[in-house]
C-alpha cells in the first residue's frame, strides 16, 4: 500500500506536471529549431511570439465569451486558438517581409540575424504590454479537473490523491496531435520535403528548383502556429504574463540545444529532458520518501535538492553538460 501511495504521490506531483510542461517546452523548442534549420539563426523573439499568439487568443476568447459562446467542459480558448494562430501568422509574415528579408537578401551573418531578432523581441514585447498590459491574465474556463484528488481517493481508498487538470490533459493531447501533424507535413508533403531539403543543403535545394522564399514563408507559418499553441497551452496550464513568456526563452533554447539544434525529434526529447529535470530537482521529495522509507528513517527536511527558484539553473546546468560533452546535442543537430 505504501508503495502504491508513493507511486501515486510521485505521479501527481512530478510525472503529470512534468509531462504537461515538457509538452509545452517541446512545442516551443520545435519552433526555435525550425527557424534555426531553415533561416539559420537563434530566434530570440520566440518567447515574445508565443506571448503575442497567446494574447491574441485571449482577446478572441474574451470576444467569444462576451457573445455567450463556450466550449462546454473545455476552455473557450481552444475555440479562439485558430484565430490567434492566424493573427500570429500575419504578424510573423509582416515581420519577415519588413525586417528579416532584407538581411536574407544580403546574406548577412547569423549573428546579425540574432541582433535583429533582439529588436523584434523588444517590439513584440512592447506591443503585447501595450495591448494587454504587463499583468497576469487567467483565461481558463470550463471544467477544471478530469480527475479530482478527492474522487480518486474515494475510488481507490489510497491516502494520496491523484488530480489531473483539464488543462494538463488538453496540453498532452494537443501536443501529440500537433507533433503528429508536423511530422506528417515534414515527411509526406511536397512542401515539407522541400523544407527538409533546404535545411540539409541550401545550394542543392536551390539547384533543384525549390523556391527559397516559399520555404521561408511556410516555415514562418508553421512556427507561428507552433508558438501560439505552445503559448496558449502554457497560459491555460499556468497563467499568461508577458514577462514569464520572455523568460521561457531559456528553457526553450536549452531544450532545442540539448536535443540538437535543427532536429525536430531532438527538440521534443530535449523539452521532456529539461522539464523532467526541472521538476524532479526542485520537487520536495519528503512526501514520496515518507512512504518508501522505514518509519524510523523518515527524512527531517523537505528533501528538496534545490529551491524552485533555481529551476533556470537546472536547465542551464544540463545545457552546459551537453555542450561540453556533445556539442551537437543528443540527436546530432547542426553545428554551423
Amino acid at each position, binding site marked *: 500500500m505504501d508503495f502504491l501511495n508513493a507511486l501515486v504521490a510521485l505521479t501527481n506531483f512530478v510525472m503529470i506536471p512534468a509531462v504537461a510542461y515538457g509538452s509545452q517546452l517541446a512545442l516551443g523548442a520545435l519552433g526555435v529549431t525550425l527557424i534555426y534549420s531553415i533561416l539559420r*539563426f*537563434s530566434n530570440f523573439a520566440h518567447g515574445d511570439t508565443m506571448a503575442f499568439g497567446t494574447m491574441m487568443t485571449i482577446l478572441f476568447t474574451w470576444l467569444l465569451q462576451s457573445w455567450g459562446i463556450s466550449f462546454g467542459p473545455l476552455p473557450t480558448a481552444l475555440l479562439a486558438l485558430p484565430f490567434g494562430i492566424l493573427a500570429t501568422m500575419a504578424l510573423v509574415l509582416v515581420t519577415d517581409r519588413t*525586417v528579416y528579408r*532584407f538581411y536574407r537578401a544580403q546574406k548577412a551573418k*547569423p*549573428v*546579425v540575424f*540574432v*541582433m*535583429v531578432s*533582439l*529588436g*523584434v*523581441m*523588444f*517590439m*513584440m*514585447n*512592447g*506591443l503585447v*504590454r*501595450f*495591448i494587454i*498590459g*504587463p499583468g497576469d491574465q487567467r483565461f481558463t474556463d470550463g471544467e477544471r479537473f478530469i480527475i479530482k484528488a478527492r474522487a480518486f481517493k474515494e475510488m481507490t481508498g489510497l491516502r494520496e490523491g491523484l488530480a489531473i487538470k483539464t488543462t494538463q490533459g488538453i496540453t498532452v493531447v494537443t501536443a501529440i496531435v500537433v507533433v503528429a501533424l508536423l511530422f506528417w507535413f515534414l515527411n509526406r508533403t511536397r512542401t515539407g520535403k522541400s523544407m527538409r531539403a533546404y535545411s540539409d543543403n541550401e545550394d542543392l535545394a536551390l539547384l533543384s528548383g525549390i523556391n527559397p522564399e516559399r520555404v521561408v514563408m511556410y516555415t514562418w507559418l508553421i512556427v507561428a502556429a507552433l508558438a501560439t499553441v505552445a503559448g496558449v497551452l502554457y497560459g491555460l496550464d499556468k497563467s499568461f504574463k508577458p*514577462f514569464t513568456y*520572455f*523568460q521561457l*526563452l*531559456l528553457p526553450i*533554447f*536549452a531544450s532545442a*540545444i540539448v536535443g540538437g539544434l535543427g532536429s525536430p525529434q531532438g527538440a521534443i526529447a530535449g523539452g521532456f529532458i529539461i522539464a523532467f529535470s526541472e521538476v524532479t530537482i526542485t520537487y520536495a521529495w519528503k512526501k514520496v520518501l515518507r512512504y518508501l522509507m522505514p518509519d524510523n528513517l523518515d527524512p527531517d*527536511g523537505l528533501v528538496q*535538492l534545490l*529551491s524552485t*527558484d*533555481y529551476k*533556470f*539553473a537546472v*536547465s*542551464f546546468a544540463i*545545457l*552546459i553538460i551537453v*555542450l*561540453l560533452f556533445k*556539442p551537437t546535442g543528443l540527436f546530432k543537430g547542426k*553545428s*554551423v
Partner: protein
Amino acid sequence: MTDTLKHSLMFAAVALLILLEGLTDWSFFSGSWNSSLVILNMGLISAIMALGVNLQWGFAGLFNVGIMGFTALGGLAVVLTSTPPVPGAWSAGGPGVVMALVMGALTVISAVAATRLLPKGGLRAALIVAILIVGFVIYRALFDPSIEAIEDINPALAGNIGGLGWPVLLSWPMGGLLAAGAAWLIGKTALGLRSDYLAIATLGIAEIIIAILKNEDWLSRGVKNVVGLPRPVPYEVDLQNDPAYVDWFASLGLDPVLGSTLYVKLGYAALFSVVLIALLWMAQMALKSPWGRMMRAIRDNEVAARAMGKNVTKRHLQIFVLGSAICGIAGAMMTTLDGQLTPGTYNPLRFTFLIWVMVIVGGSGNNFGSVLGGFLIWFLWIKVEPMSLELITLLTSGLDETNMLREHLLENAAHMRLFTMGLILLLVLRFSPRGLIPEK
C-alpha cells in the same frame, strides 16, 4: 564637415538634450535640474556598461547577453564590501559557509579531474556521478545549518553575513573583481563554442546570478533588499543642517532643499565622470595598442589570426573577463547611486538588451560611439514615456475624454518604451548598421 566635428556635434546635441531637461518644461522636458542630473548620472553609468560591452562585441565579436548578471554581481560587491559587519554573523556561520563552498568547489574540481584523467567508459561516468552526489550531500550538510544560523541573527534588519565595512568607493573595483571571476568561470566553459551558444550560456548565467541574489538571504538578504548602503557623498539632510552650506546655497540663489539635492547629485556625477574618463582612456589606448589590433584581427578573421600564432581562445577569455569586469564596476556604481540592493528589480530587458541597443546605436567598435549611445539611449529610455503620452494625447484629441480606446492608450503609454527601443534598434541596423559614430 570633418568626422571629428560631426561627432562633437552629436555629443553636443545629447548634452543639449540633458541641459534642456533642466532649463525648460516645454513639451516632454520636465524643467527640473534634479531630473536632468538623474538622467546624467544614469547616463554616465550606462556609458560605462556600453564601453564594457563594446570591448567584448566591438573589439572581439563576443556576443554576451548576460550583462545583467555582471551588473548584479557589482551590486552584491557593494553590500559585501561596504556594509558594516553584522555582529555575530561571521562566527555563527562564516566558517561553515566557507567550508561548504570549498567542498562544493572541490567536488566540481574532482569531477572535472576525473573526466580529464580517466579513460572513457561506464566506470568513469559512474565515478563522476558518485563524486557529484557525495559532494552535494556533504555540501548541503555543511551549508544548511550555517546559513540558518546566519539568517537567525536579527532577521528584521540583517540576517545576512554583512560586509567588511570598507569605504564604499573600494566596492567599485571589488564589483569589477567579482564580475571578472564569474566571467572567467563562464568563459572557461562557454568560449570556444559557437557564438549563439555563448549568447545562450550568458543569458542563463545572468538568470542564475539573479536567482542566487534573490534566494540566498544569508548573502544579500534576498528580496528583503539591503537598504541604507553607505554613500561616497554627504547626505542631503546633513547639508541642510549645516549653516555654512545653507549660506553658500543662498548666495547661489538656491533654497537649502534644492541646493543640497543638486550638490549630492553633482558629487555623484563628478565621481562617475572620473571613472568613465579613466575607462574611456584605457579603452582607447587598448584599441590603438598592438593588443587592440590583434583583437580586431581575431574578430575579422579567426582562422588567419590563428595561423599567425595567436591563441584565439585565450585572447577571447581575456577580453570577456575585462569587459565583464567593466560591467561589474558600473553595476557597483549603480547600486551605490541607488543606495540599496534590490535583487527583484533586475530585468534582462532593461539591464542586458538595452545596453545592446546603446552599443549598436552608438556604433560598435568605437568607444566614443558607445559612450554617445549610452547617453542618448538612456535619455530616450526615460523620455519616451512622456513623449508617447503627448503623442497619444495629440492623436486621440478628437476622441471623447471617457472614450475606452483613449483611456486604454493613455494608460498603457508607458509600455511604448520597449516598442520604441526595438524600433530604434531595427532602424539603425537596417539603415546605418555601423551606428552613429562608426568604427574607423
